[in-house]
């Protein structure tokens, strides 16, 4: 059996069968090390069709290699990642987001820091498309989370040209570089959805993408006293400002805070909304300079005074996800690049497809 394989949407390779085609993708360095779905022309075209956009349209060049991110090349990588066509709008929105110059994708791909684009989905289509937001949402077992995040990574490798040790210089990397995607648990959250802060409507479906370290677990056991909410905020802030974090050492960068539903309810009951939470975290996430200098004296910071980990509350992304319990999560960031690791966002477009005449 002969199976045609379209690697980048333009070149067509030949393999004897599906197994050989997968091996060929590995040999060509087109995979993340895991087996990939063979991007046959038929599969790629089905993925392109799901966008309703001309496959040859380029939505930008992707750093560090500067490859053209055409709808078809994105689609080919989405196929390889295992996406079904219904998920393609999320993949496309994620690629559009990271191509926003404010994301500093080329620089981020080349840094020695461990950072990966975290995709946060909000809005009604997130649930429709099965993007998990509850127990273990950042772990295995959820096809949409796994394949959307993987598709973006494969785009970054195959279109952006990022390869470990030559163009992706992360010293160690982190597991989220395979896939890093979840939805906010809007159905149960007492707090306003993340995408409203960008000016979208609640009925819009949106991806927010931010460069993030792996999750840092934050243990907090609530008491019944009135100080509990403030203590929770201080524990979260202390994790943000840990002495080894880039954020506190550079006083910049976005930070992602994922509240479990119980912690979110605790703060909401005390009258906090997300803006107020972010303000408190920005206020509390500090270190004394002399304390920091005991650990990293060569970074050239002032000898004394208070060092802020965050420039402003705007650098704090607060969302609600995961199961209820004792653990929330903080994800510090690289904090460098011309735009200091800013979060970006894009609407998930589903109105581009043509009307199917018989539907």
């Amino acid at each position, binding site marked *: 059996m002969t199976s045609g394989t379209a690697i980048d949407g333009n070149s067509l390779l030949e393999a004897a069968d599906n197994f050989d085609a997968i091996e060929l993708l590995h040999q060509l360095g087109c995979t993340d090390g895991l087996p990939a779905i063979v991007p046959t022309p038929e599969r790629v075209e089905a993925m392109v069709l799901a966008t309703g956009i001309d496959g040859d349209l380029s939505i930008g060049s992707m750093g*560090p290699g500067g490859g053209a991110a055409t709808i078809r090349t994105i689609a080919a990588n989405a196929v390889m990642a295992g996406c079904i066509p219904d998920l393609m709008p999320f993949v496309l929105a994620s690629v559009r987001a990271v191509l926003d110059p404010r994301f500093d994708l080329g620089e981020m791909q080349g840094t020695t820091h461990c950072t990966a684009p975290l995709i946060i989905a909000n809005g009604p289509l997130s649930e429709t498309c099965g993007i998990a937001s509850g127990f273990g949402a950042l772990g295995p077992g959820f096809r949409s989370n796994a394949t959307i995040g993987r598709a973006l990574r494969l785009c970054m490798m195959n279109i952006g040209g990022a390869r470990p040790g*030559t163009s992706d210089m992360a010293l160690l990397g982190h597991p989220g570089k395979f896939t890093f995607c979840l939805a906010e648990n809007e159905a149960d959250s007492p707090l306003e959805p993340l995408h409203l802060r960008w000016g979208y409507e609640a009925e819009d479906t949106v991806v927010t993408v931010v460069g993030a370290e792996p999750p840092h677990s934050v243990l907090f056991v609530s008491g019944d006293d009135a100080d509990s909410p403030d203590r929770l905020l201080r524990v979260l802030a202390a994790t943000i400002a840990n002495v080894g974090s880039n954020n506190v050492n550079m006083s910049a960068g976005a930070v992602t805070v994922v509240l479990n539903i119980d912690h979110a309810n605790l703060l909401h009951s005390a009258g906090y909304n997300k803006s107020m939470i972010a303000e408190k975290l920005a206020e509390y996430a500090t270190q004394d300079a002399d304390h920091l200098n005991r650990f990293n004296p060569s970074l050239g910071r002032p000898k004394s005074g208070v060092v802020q980990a965050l420039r402003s509350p705007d650098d704090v992304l607060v969302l609600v996800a995961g199961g209820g319990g004792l653990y929330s999560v903080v994800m510090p960031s690289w904090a460098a690049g011309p735009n200091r690791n800013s979060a970006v966002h894009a609407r998930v477009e589903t109105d581009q497809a043509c009307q199917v005449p018989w539907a």
Partner: protein
Amino acid sequence: MRDGIELARLNIPVVALLTEEFWPQGDFVAQAAGMPAVPRVRLPHPVAGTGPTRMATIASDNATAIVSALTVPASP
């Protein structure tokens, strides 16, 4: 590396300083940016975080090469 390429495009003399470990990345970026011959000097690895004394030694050891790269016309 990209800063150097952008300056070179403006016809401003430039040299990119790359440590041994980052030399392949420099080649990749230079090729991707369409300026494979942008001048660069290879430094020992690491430089960052090694202290002022070692940095001064590295600067001294490479000053001639850096000046040469800045004063010799680069091929396009």
